[in-house]
Structures are given as C-alpha cells and as structure tokens.
C-alpha cells in the first residue's frame, strides 16, 4: 500500500489534485461573476491578494492564523461588493469590453496599492498544518497534512456553493436573476442586491484561494498571477456558464500540469493550461460543459 501510494503515478495524481483543486476554486469564483453580471474579472486574483494582505499580514503581529483567514475572507467579500457597486454597476448595458478594460486597470491599481502599503514584507506566511510530506518506509508520498486540509476545505466550499445554488431560495433567486434580470425584476426579485452578493461571494471564494496559495510562501502581490491564468483557462474551457465545468477543467489542468512536469519538462509545465485550452476548444468551441440552448420557433 505504502509503495503504491508512493508510486510515480500516485505521486503525480496527489500533486495534481493539490494544485487542481485550488485552480478549480478560483475558476468557480470567476464563473459566479460571469453568470451573474457577464464580467470577465481579470482583477479576481489581485482582489483576493489584497484581502489576503489585509488579513494575513496580522499573522506577523501575533494574531491567530484562523482569525486572520476569517478577516481576509470578510475583507474580500466587502471588496467584491464595493467593486460591483462602484466600478461595475455604471457599466451594465455597455459593451462587454468596458468592464474588461476597467478590471485590468483595477488589477494594476490593486497590485500597486499592495506594494506601496506592505513594502517591507518579505516573511513567509506560516502554515497552520505541517507541509512536510508523509513517508512510507523511505519513500515520500506527495501528501502533507496541509494538502489534506486544503483538499477538504475546497471540497466543502464547492459543495456548500452547490447547495446554496440548488437548495436555497437565495440560490434560486440568483439563478433566475442570471438567466433573465428583466423577468426577475418583474417577479419582485431584487436583482441589484443579488449582483452585489454574487460579487461578494465570488471574491470571498477567491480570497480563500489566495490565502491557500500564499500559505507557506512569501506574501507577495503577484502570488496569484500564475495560478490565476490556469483558473481563467479552466473557466473558459468549462464554458464560463458551468460551475461543474469549471471545477472539472480546473482539476484537469492541475493533473495535466503535474504529469507534464514529471514526464516531459519543467519548462513546458506552465503551458499545460494552454494545452488543455487548445484541446478543449478544438473539441467543443462553445466550452465543454455549456448546454445547447434550444429555441422554439
């Protein structure tokens, strides 16, 4: 058993899952925003990092990791809500390129603000769980307590969000508002509030991902840049509309990256997202998991 878990195949699978689940989480946060407001949020990574700095920086001042995590997520949600109200709301009904340009600008602004406030920070954010891999005999299994924690948290958040959308009245309103804001308004749904909540939820999820990515690393404004590209591709390959698609594509990219890293070359690994993108879009240009909308004539 131990040698099987430590085999090359399982090592790659564990490593791929550890990255892939976080990619899936960020991809899901992008899908939530796209579904509700049709905005491609290029600043998602930076927004999560900003909130992470606000909360996790207090670890260095002696505050407990978990309080800092909670503070980060709450900050992220507030930042998301504020962004929707201030930056995005004036752009509804305008060409779809407008919010993209605004969010790319916001990305630059946020990274500059982070760099100017927390300039001197070069400390590593300590992990609440050991990041040392388990061993079987003298062979390493690519699983640490932190990886287990991370996969469990991501699974809980993903199922929580699925329950929210499928099994609560709030989720029903969000889905209705995303499908047809006009009809929803006529039914008395307060669409504006739901859009704000969608951004808050999404940025909260994105912040959780940013904290996971930054744990065990030096806290830097650019921590999310690499994984964000993979997540963006995952969301696109999944079809942007589909939470399930984003999650499956996200985990797949993590696995593909790990196998390329192991069997091919470390220099090719960062391109794995692009490889999944090309293959995925070649098979189904509209995205792997978008349902065909049939129209009655």
């Amino acid at each position, binding site marked *: 058993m131990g040698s099987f878990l430590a085999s090359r195949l399982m090592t790659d699978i564990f490593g791929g899952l550890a990255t892939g689940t976080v990619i899936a989480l960020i991809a899901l946060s992008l899908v939530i925003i796209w579904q509700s407001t049709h905005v491609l949020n290029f600043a998602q990574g930076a927004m999560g990092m900003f909130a992470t700095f606000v909360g996790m920086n207090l670890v260095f001042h002696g505050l407990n990791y978990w309080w800092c995590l909670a503070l980060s997520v709450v900050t992220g949600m507030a930042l998301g809500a504020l962004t929707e109200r201030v930056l995005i709301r004036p752009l509804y009904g305008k060409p779809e390129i407008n919010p993209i340009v605004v969010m790319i600008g916001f990305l630059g602004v946020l990274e500059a603000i982070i760099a100017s406030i927390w300039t001197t920070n070069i400390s590593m954010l300590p992990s609440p769980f050991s990041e040392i891999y388990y061993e079987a005999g003298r062979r390493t299994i690519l699983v640490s307590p932190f990886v287990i924690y991370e996969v469990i948290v991501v699974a809980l958040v993903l199922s929580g969000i699925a329950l*929210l959308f499928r099994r609560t009245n709030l989720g029903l*309103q969000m889905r*209705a508002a995303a499908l047809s804001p006009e009809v929803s308004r006529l039914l008395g749904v307060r669409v504006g509030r739901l859009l704000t909540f969608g951004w808050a939820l999404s940025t909260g999820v994105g912040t959780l991902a940013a904290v996971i990515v930054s744990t065990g690393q030096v806290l830097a404004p650019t921590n999310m840049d690499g994984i964000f590209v993979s997540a963006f591709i995952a969301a696109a390959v999944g079809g942007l509309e589909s939470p399930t698609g984003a999650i499956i594509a996200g985990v797949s990219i993590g696995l593909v990256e790990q196998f390329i890293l192991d069997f091919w070359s470390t220099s090719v690994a960062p391109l794995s997202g692009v490889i999944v993108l090309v293959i995925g879009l070649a098979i189904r240009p509209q995205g792997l998991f978008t349902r065909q909308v049939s129209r009655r004539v």
Partner: protein
Amino acid sequence: MATDRALSLSVEDVSVHFGGLYALTNVSFDVAVNEIVGLIGPNGAGKTTAFNVICGFLRPQTGVVRFPVLGRENLRPHQLARAGVARTLQGVGLFDRLSVLENVMAGAQSRSGGGLGVGLFGLPASARGERELRQEAAAMLERVGARQYAGALPGAIPYGIAKKVAVARALMARPALLLLDEPASGLDERELGEFADLISTLGESMSVLLVEHNMDFVMPLVHRVVVLDFGEVIAAGTPHDVSHNETVLAAYLGVGE
C-alpha cells in the same frame, strides 16, 4: 361608475400620444375586487398601450392609474409584484434553464420580506423556506393541471402547458390583482377551454384584468367587458350588453362597413 365598489384598479382619464399619434384618449375604466374584466378591441385599438400604462412601462401624458385597495398609484414595473399586482408576459417569459417547478417557485420572490439578509445569515432557515416553497409550487402546478411537468425544462413542454405554468408563477405572488396579457394567443380549442376554466376560478380570490382580442374566449369568462377602439373606450358593460351594442358590432366585428 358606481363609487361604492371596492376597486383593485382604476384607470382615470389616461391619454397617451406618441408625437402627433394618439394611442389612448381619455381612457377610464376600473376593476372591482374579485371581478374579472376583459379589455378587448380590434388590433391597433390601444389594448397593449393600455396594458403597458397599467404595468408602468409607459407614463401617460395625462391621467392616472390607481390601485385603490392597495393604496398605490402609477407603479413602476418592478414595483408591481411587491405591491400585490402580478402579471403574465406576452408570450411566456419562463426561465429557460430553470425547471418548471423552479420557475413557479420564482414567482413567490416578491413575498420574501427579508431577502438577502435572511437568506445569507439564516441559510438553514432559507433551506427550510425553500422546501415549503417547493411544496407550495407543486400544489400550484397541480391546480393549473401541469403537475406532471414539474421536472421538465420550459423548452420541452407544450405551449399551452407553458402558458399555464406562467399563470401558476404569477399566482405564487398571491396577488390582489392579476393582469393577463393575451392569454389565449397560440392556444388550441381544448387548451382554450381549460384555460377559461382556470381563469374563472381565480375570481374567487382576486381581481383579474385580461387583455385579449379573442372575443369568443373572453365573453363567457368575464363579469364585465371594456371595449377599446382607436384609443377610446367605446363601450363597457356585461358581455351580454356589449355583444348587442351597435357601436361595438360596427367597430369590432366590421358589421356595417
């Protein structure tokens, strides 16, 4: 008009013109509590304009639309549902990727008072409320005779059923006044009969205004008829009186041309 009746809707001296074209001229009529009223007229008579004024999509240049029992007037479209006025959309307007049952559940959203705060901080309560809503929506589908389509997507059900589902969705708001826009359009004979039966039962618990050009459908169904022609009310009264009114026959049926 009698003033001792409690009114759900009172359209008073409404005029609408687009540039020099008068779409409605001094139009007045009302709908009493638990009364079913048909607003009819030939194509181009101003029915849709009148409906849009009542729903708040159009502001009349003169006149006012009151909802006396609700204590409101000149409501905007998004205010209707919360004020107690439900409407169906011309065509169907169902959410294409929500199930039939979820579509009906969505009709109850104007009732949920707490909204986001309750939904967010009381998620367990929200889930419990969702189960109750699910049962209520299923009962409503039973009432309109579409229970067996609960799990289907709107694109996969017959048009006649979809129109019933749209009414079920509107009824979930528990409205005091229901506005039906062209409910008979696109229905076959059998569906028309079923639909008429359904609307007849609604008068027990709410007022209904239906805008419709199919006279055969409207006449047996309503308590009163208001007839529009060239943007003016040319007759109002019981279906029997109106169908024997010379002016109406001339205008609507083309008799005497």
